[in-house]
């Protein structure tokens, strides 16, 4: 007969139902023996008090053994029935019942390959997340760099603007025009000077 280890019940109770029943059996049996022993002691003691009594303790012992033999037989048979009922109705987890700590088992029955796939997907997602974070760092770094470059370029433009403002401040609205007019004026001055020099020279000679 294959023994049902009742492991699932042991998981719930913390002991095997059979052990529990054995413990109860032994305890009950001990009580039966103890009580029988007490009965016999009382009867023997009672006999001591009776004069000319022809019942010996040995005979009392034989009566006890006879009575106990019968009781033990009935005890074992009754206990066997009670044990069966205990194991079927009390210390038993019905086959359709799942213990709370195992509730995941029915929510997620994953095969090995599904489990592997799930782990791989998690690893891929982790890699992807790292990549995205790196991309974010790179983008932020470029934005930072662009801010510096923009500031530098705006600074340069400001410099140019200031140069123009300096010119304006001294009456030249447009450098280029003023330079051209400067060149033209210089040329006129040079012609004038040339003319004056020539006049001077002719005066000396006359």
């Amino acid at each position, binding site marked *: 007969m294959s*023994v049902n280890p009742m*492991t699932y019940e*042991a998981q719930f109770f913390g002991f*095997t139902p*059979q052990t529990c029943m054995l413990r109860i059996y032994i305890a009950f049996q001990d009580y039966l023996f103890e009580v029988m022993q007490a009965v016999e002691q009382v009867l023997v003691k009672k006999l001591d008090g009776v004069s000319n009594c022809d019942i010996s303790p040995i005979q009392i012992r034989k009566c006890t053994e006879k009575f106990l033999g019968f009781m033990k037989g009935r005890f074992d048979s009754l206990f066997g029935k009670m044990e069966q009922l205990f194991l079927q109705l009390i210390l038993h987890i019905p086959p359709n019942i799942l213990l709370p700590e195992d509730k995941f088992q029915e929510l997620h029955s994953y095969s090995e390959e599904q489990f592997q796939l799930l782990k791989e997907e998690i690893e891929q997602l982790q890699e992807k997340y790292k990549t995205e974070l790196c991309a974010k760092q790179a983008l932020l770094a470029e934005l930072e760099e662009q801010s510096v470059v923009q500031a530098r370029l705006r600074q340069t433009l400001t410099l140019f603007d200031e140069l123009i403002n300096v010119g304006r401040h001294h009456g030249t609205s447009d450098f280029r025009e003023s330079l051209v007019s400067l060149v033209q004026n210089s040329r006129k001055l040079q012609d004038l000077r040339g003319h004056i020099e020539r006049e001077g020279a002719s005066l000396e000679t006359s």
Partner: protein
Amino acid sequence: FDEIIVDIAMKRKQYPRKILEYVINTIKTKQE
């Protein structure tokens, strides 16, 4: 035999929870 059954049953009851704690801590640490 009885002790073995109880030992296995207790492991089945307790170990998943313990292992789960480690798994959850590992996941949290990885995320951090």
